[in-house]
């Protein structure tokens, strides 16, 4: 596998992690706003 693909996969995994974290923050804020 070329290094280009490796970097692409690492970048995609990093983005997936950040995206899921942002969704988690979104849920936490919604919960707080309801209180």
């Amino acid at each position, binding site marked *: 596998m070329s*290094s*280009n*693909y490796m*970097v*692409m996969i690492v*970048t*995609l995994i990093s*983005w*997936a992690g950040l*995206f899921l974290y*942002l*969704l988690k*923050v*979104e849920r936490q*804020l919604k919960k*707080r*706003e309801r209180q």
Partner: protein
Amino acid sequence: MWWKYLTGAAMAGVIVAAFMLPAPQIQIGDASRIFFFHVPAALAGFVAFVVAAVYGAVYLKTRNLVADRRAAASAEVGLTFSTIALISGAIFANVTWGVFWNWDPRETTLLAVLLVYAAYFALRQAVGHPSTRARLSAVYILLGGVAAPFLFFVLPRMYVSLHPRDTLVSGGGEFAMTLPVGLTFGAAMVTYVLLYLWLFQLADRAGRIKEELDYQREHVL
């Protein structure tokens, strides 16, 4: 909420396209793919600073503290995107120029922008009274908004720079990119602005909750 999932999917698409397409710059090769992330990050930072300045102006006109909170939220996100642009630019500089930092006009003006907005947060920390803090911050962010276009677009073009300048449009005014590269680049610009909007909204909502908690602490407890 749907547009947040769209942002997630669009960013994944941009990442795949950025690495699957032929490198946008043949001489530099694969390292030139950073262009798909560096330029949109700088654009999102600029948009954030303009929005912050607009909210600063809204505060001065209406004296509504919501506008002050939104100006701070936008500047916070703008500082993050500009830092990403600065770091990715330094990495690209190391590949193409052989050094991370050489005080090129582009690097220097972006650093100046970062310092201007970092000072904005220092100012906010230094003033305790909410309406005094909001008034001073609004004037400062408005001045920052006037300076930002010069620092981003005008000053770097006034001096000799190694930074690529004909990436989007050639010296003759023609579109310089191939269609797939241009489309990916356009999609990356839109996606980064959407990501900015999402982060701005989160920062604003978190700021509102913090204000409510501070109020409760001072007046209820």
